């Protein structure tokens, strides 16, 4: 998978922004999960776009070892049923950025890769500038603890948001 090849060649504390076509986003994240275990020991996934239960279903179907993932689910607490799991922490809302930041601080320490799925939905809930400020502080945190990060954004997102997000990125890839 091109994305993972690219991210594994980046330095330990680098950030990749992945711009996905709207229809592709879902598949890309799941494919990333499937292949990431070949390159990374532990992956932390922040989901603000789909519930943890979707991932769980896909993982079962594809026989993926869920124990090597840590999920931070930002949407189930508000909108759907939470599936109790030792691998998933539920955040009260996608607007609860402080809560998310604290949880990420805990979960990202022993992760080799953090995947944020995705910036477009976080921006929808929090507005562009607040989201960018949050992502800037996250990127700084990941650089400090030497964790790679991958931010997904859908290509239909406002062009300015894409350009501004690119400021924190070490590489930008469109798929």
């Amino acid at each position, binding site marked *: 998978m091109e994305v993972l090849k690219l991210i594994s060649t980046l330095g330990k504390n680098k*950030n990749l*922004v992945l711009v996905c076509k709207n229809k592709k986003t879902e598949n890309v994240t799941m494919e990333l999960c499937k292949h990431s275990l070949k390159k990374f020991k532990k992956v932390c996934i922040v989901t603000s776009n789909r519930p943890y239960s979707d991932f769980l279903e896909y993982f079962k179907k594809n026989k993926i070892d869920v124990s090597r993932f840590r999920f931070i689910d930002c949407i189930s607490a508000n909108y759907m049923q939470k599936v109790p799991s030792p691998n998933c922490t539920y955040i009260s809302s996608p607007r609860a950025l402080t809560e998310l930041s604290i949880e990420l601080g805990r979960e990202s320490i022993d992760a080799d890769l953090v995947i944020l799925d995705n910036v477009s939905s976080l921006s929808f809930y929090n507005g562009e*500038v607040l989201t*960018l*400020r949050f992502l800037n502080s996250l990127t*700084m945190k990941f650089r400090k603890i030497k964790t790679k990060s991958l931010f997904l954004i859908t290509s239909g997102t406002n062009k300015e948001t894409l350009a*501004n997000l*690119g*400021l*924190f990125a070490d590489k930008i890839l469109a798929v």
Partner: protein
Amino acid sequence: MVKKVLIVDDEKDIADSVKLVVEKLGYHAKTLNTGTSVVDLLKKEKFDLVMLDMLMPEMTGRQVLENIRKEPKTKNQKVAFLTVVQLGQAGEQSVKKLKPAAYFQKPITDLAEFRKQLKKLLD
């Protein structure tokens, strides 16, 4: 003639603190809390340096500088960023294209160095 600096930051306290530093160095300073009116102001009034925050609502610093470079009357304006944004490698390349004169990191931790760089930009 005393040199003039325009400080653009949506956080009023920060803009005012930078203004104090600039004025203590003997320059004139003016503050704006939004990026939207920067180009219009620059068309009317001459500034020797514009200090731009990056992450501002309505219009980010990057957009403001893009607009400054597009406008024939302001395209050669000396601009520096003063921001919390820690640029990535791709970010550095895209900002370089806009030719900022300097990039200062917020918060300012070394005031003496900041003053030195500012003087270098203005003298």
